[in-house]
């Protein structure tokens, strides 16, 4: 089965970690990458995607409601919304913060796992809370591929530690190996399929 999406959750220290991961994934990598990065409610629209695009060379954007999910693109959850994956595309929500976060990594992972099951890969990066721990168990239960950044090298270890503690993480990798691993695993299964 080919992978249809990679979801990534990041919090404290996430910007640098995301730049590292995206930087080692080739431009126009076919599988869409969808990111929930915790950030301030008032963050300016477009600032985070702009920075990520600038540093990684990828086509990065904040999706609008019901936007189709397109191959070769990187998407970032807009500030102060939850980003969900629906059968008909992206969906946004302003329901309350989940574990103090909006966007919530759990909400993104849970909805994507529902739609893509074993065709989903999920990655938890650095962070100082436990958002994503529930989400990654949902991804794994649905047969998806699960990865966490090695807490030892993370700017903040709490978030990958919480994910690993659930027992749902299959691969714990140093930051610099995550991008190449995704390219190899997600990419090769695509060709095999």
């Amino acid at each position, binding site marked *: 089965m080919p992978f249809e999406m990679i979801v990534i959750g990041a919090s404290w220290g996430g910007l640098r970690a995301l730049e590292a991961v995206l930087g080692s994934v080739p431009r126009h990598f076919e599988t869409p990458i969808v990111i929930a990065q915790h950030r301030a409610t*008032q963050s300016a*629209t477009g600032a985070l995607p702009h920075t990520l695009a600038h540093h990684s060379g990828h086509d990065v954007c*904040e*999706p*609008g*409601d*019901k936007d189709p999910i397109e191959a070769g693109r990187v998407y970032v959850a*807009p500030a*102060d*919304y*939850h980003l*969900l*994956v*629906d*059968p*008909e595309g992206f*969906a*946004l*929500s*302003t*329901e*309350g*913060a*989940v*574990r103090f976060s*909006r966007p919530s990594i*759990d*909400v993104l992972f*849970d*909805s994507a796992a*529902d739609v893509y*099951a074993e065709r989903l890969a999920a990655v938890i990066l650095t962070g100082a809370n436990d958002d994503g721990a*529930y989400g990654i*168990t*949902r991804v794994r*239960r*649905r047969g998806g591929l699960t990865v966490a950044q090695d807490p030892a090298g993370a700017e903040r270890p709490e978030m990958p530690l919480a994910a690993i503690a659930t027992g749902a993480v299959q691969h714990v990798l140093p930051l610099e190996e995550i991008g190449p691993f995704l390219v190899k695993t997600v990419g090769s299964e695509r060709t095999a399929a």
Partner: protein
Amino acid sequence: MAIEDLARASDDLERIEVQLLLEAIYQHYGFDFRGYALGSLKRRLWRRAIGEKVETLSALQDRVLHDPTVMERLLLDLSINVTAMFRDPTFFQAFRERVVPALRTYPFVRIWNAGCSTGEETYSLAIVLKEEGLYERTRIYATDINDRVLERAREGRFPLEKMREFTDNYIRAGGQESFSTYYTAHGDTATFSPELRSQVVFAQHNLVSDAPFNEFNVIVCRNVMIYFGKTLQDRVHELFYDSLDSLGILALGHKESIRFTRYEDRYEPLDVQEKLYRKMY
């Protein structure tokens, strides 16, 4: 909420259960959630299931059908969104700069705040109109599917701890007054001035199933249709188009658009960034 409990969902069966539950609610209570976007709808159904201490969505269906108070609680779960006064300050700034001048040309102004939930946006609009000297000749129709949230909106009471955020937003939205003059603090509650609802009609209206009820100069419906699937969004756009005067203005949320709807060509953008559109014909 113990979010881990959501994991009880067993997937294919769950899809059937969701469909049956929505059908049952529609047939028995008349509320039609069948066209809602699935992801957030499911989250809210499960939140209610956990709240009612039932293990499956079929068990929730049993509770909802046989106990109207459970339906009431579910309706609350489905209609509450967590927002702030002057959420997206740049929108309210654009409203002052682009919408208000157009409204000055009318002797009387009718605004529809559709899906007003607990009223944060409605009070924000009232404050802007008051400061711009238009409030006395404006009527704001603030509607929501749920009577309970309308009651809360009518009371105009918000947690005092929110006032820092609201004040900050207000200033960033171009507010010139001292924000604290609009409310009085009692304990941990801020009660907004009754004057801010003297020109407001809070009324129950269901965007999914109810007909147009007036002609409006402005419709503000921000972050409401994000909960609808595409087909339903198209129907609501038809309702809005039919409810707007010629040259009427439609305001959507920052991440919403009329692009790819059937009504795209009937509007011209008034402010692309702030999702303000003017009906052309």
